[in-house]
């Protein structure tokens, strides 16, 4: 499944052969850049989450307040992100929406991680034909475009937040399953598992005490990597009118409402919420890039969610 890259790794992202180019980084600086990615990624994610929680709280409950005297105003001091078609403050709505989107995405990520971990662990541990059947099943799930499957689920169970969460969670667990499976496959061969088995531990005990704890870090990380994807899907579904009910100001709903506003020239209604979305993804991309650099370079294709 995963090929381990056995080539010696240098600290520099530069190729060993060939000439160095101006502007290249070497040694500790590149290491620092890698760490800076992590700091920026985690810091950005924390800052965005805090903003999503705190700004609507400080700003009061008026993100839904309609003010027809202040319709489609460009950004100003009173309304830093401007106002929308019915005079609501875009900044408050955008941060509130980011909070809702992140909450939905986090629930999806948890569901996907739990399913994926169980599936991957079962597949890696049981091996043999069960493993093969389970992995073909993963291929089968992957063969349906995620959004398509999501649309089918949401269309048939319309109008509930639960359906949106389920539709995203049920389509995103396959990457986690693959990562966990390959992790379990490599862990199985380690001496400490041998020691546990020869010490008379049952298969269940080996799984519970030795394998699952070791699988937790990559599983948690895949959950974080799923986050922007889940936000993305929630946004897309809401934009199509199939996602969260319209009264929940998620980013997707805000953008869907902003569609007409764009034709009237009110770019701020779309630009600021989209920027929050992009910032979230960038923060997670930073974490992902750091992890990729630190661990297995070859896993890149698999984790490039």
């Amino acid at each position, binding site marked *: 499944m995963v090929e381990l890259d056995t080539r010696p790794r240098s600290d520099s*992202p*530069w*190729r*060993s*052969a*060939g000439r160095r*180019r*101006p*502007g*290249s*980084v070497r040694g500790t600086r590149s290491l620092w850049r890698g760490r800076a990615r992590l700091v920026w990624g985690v810091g950005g994610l924390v800052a965005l989450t805090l903003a999503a929680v705190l700004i609507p709280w400080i700003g009061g409950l008026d993100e839904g307040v309609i003010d027809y005297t202040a319709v489609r105003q460009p950004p100003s001091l009173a309304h830093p992100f401007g106002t929308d078609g019915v005079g609501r403050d875009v900044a408050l709505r955008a941060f509130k929406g980011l909070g809702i989107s992140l909450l939905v995405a986090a629930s999806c990520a948890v569901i996907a991680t739990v399913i994926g971990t169980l599936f991957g662990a079962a597949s890696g541990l049981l091996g043999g034909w069960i493993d093969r059947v389970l992995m*073909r*099943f993963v*291929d*089968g799930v*992957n*063969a*349906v*475009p*995620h*959004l*398509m*499957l999501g*649309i*089918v*689920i*949401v*269309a*048939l*169970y*319309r109008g509930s937040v639960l359906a949106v969460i389920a539709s995203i969670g049920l389509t995103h667990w396959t990457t986690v399953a693959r990562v966990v499976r390959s992790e379990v496959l490599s862990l199985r061969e380690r001496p400490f598992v041998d020691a546990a088995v020869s010490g008379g531990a049952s298969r269940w005990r080996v799984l519970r005490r030795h394998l699952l704890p070791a699988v937790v870090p990559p599983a948690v990380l895949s959950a974080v990597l799923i986050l*922007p994807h889940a936000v*993305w899907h929630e*946004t*897309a579904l809401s*934009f*199509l*009118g*199939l996602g969260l009910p319209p009264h929940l100001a998620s980013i997707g709903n805000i*953008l869907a409402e*902003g*569609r007409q506003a*764009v*034709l*009237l*020239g009110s*770019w701020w209604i*779309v630009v600021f919420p*989209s920027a929050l*979305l*992009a910032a*979230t*993804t*960038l923060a997670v*991309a930073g974490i992902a890039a750091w992890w990729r650099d630190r661990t297995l370079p070859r896993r*890149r*294709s698999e984790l*490039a969610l």
Partner: protein
Amino acid sequence: MTVLAPARHRGREVAKLVAWRLLVAVPVVVLVAIAVFVLAAVSPFDPIYQYFGAGIFSASGADIANARAQLGLDVPVWEQFERWVGGLLSGDLGQSLSFRQPVATVIAQRLPWTLLLVSVGLLVSVVLSLTAAVVAAWRQGGWVDRAITALGHTLEGLPPFVLALAAIAVFAVAWPVLPVAGLTDAGAPVSFDQVARHIVLPAMVLGLSQTPWLVLHARSSLISALDEDHVLGARARGLPERVVVLRHALPTALLPFVTVLGNRLPELVTGAVLVETVFSWPGIAAAIVTAALAVDFPLLAALTLLTTVAVLAGALIADVAVLLLDPRVSADG
């Protein structure tokens, strides 16, 4: 999926690959069909309400029973499934409730437009991403590379409809040069001229939305290709930099690119769904949304199966292409 084999065996290799994939595809498609049907069967939604609309309140019990029988909803679920599969196998996809047309007609009318949009979009995306990737990998670590990588990561996080809205804001509102909706101007007949003008924005947006992932991937495989011995050899022989990068490194990097392109098809379908919706493009992907909003099960199920088959076919074509393109295959023979 690189297979080292003498050239005379290439045809056989391809045939074997195709046969094996078809064998795997059958259970996958069956599984998807069953899953979609089960989802619909346990759904709380009753299609009869969609059929009658508000008329359900004034309809008599007999009318409803009649309509149920007409729609084939009066029999148990497994029998509905049997009928549906029987219809599928004999080429009858059922009746679309939202378009009031046979599903086959809806697909036949809309599929060509989607194929047109998707192929132009794919072309845009391949050209853009290869150019950007070559520049970025060549000047790795430089500011161009960092700008392209950062832009790639940013675009990756933006859904295609945000790009679409941005494109509309720029090219239709701020600087009105391009039409934003439909296949032709209102009432105008379909002509090459009209379609060519109307396809620009949707195809550019679709292409651009697929580019970041391809750029990042092509960049990384080009960087590892630049590290290989034959590139070092080419440099040692004193070949010009352009020849080294474009003729020696790029072909090696293109092989994984083809595979990635084939496996990228689900995202392309996803992108098409969003782009067609925003630009009112009369394609099959926009019909998915119409069908979903109206809970039009026959159309929705047919389109799910169609996209599944398309995805499997995309992966297969990519693998066959790699098998045929890999120079090592002919070099051995």
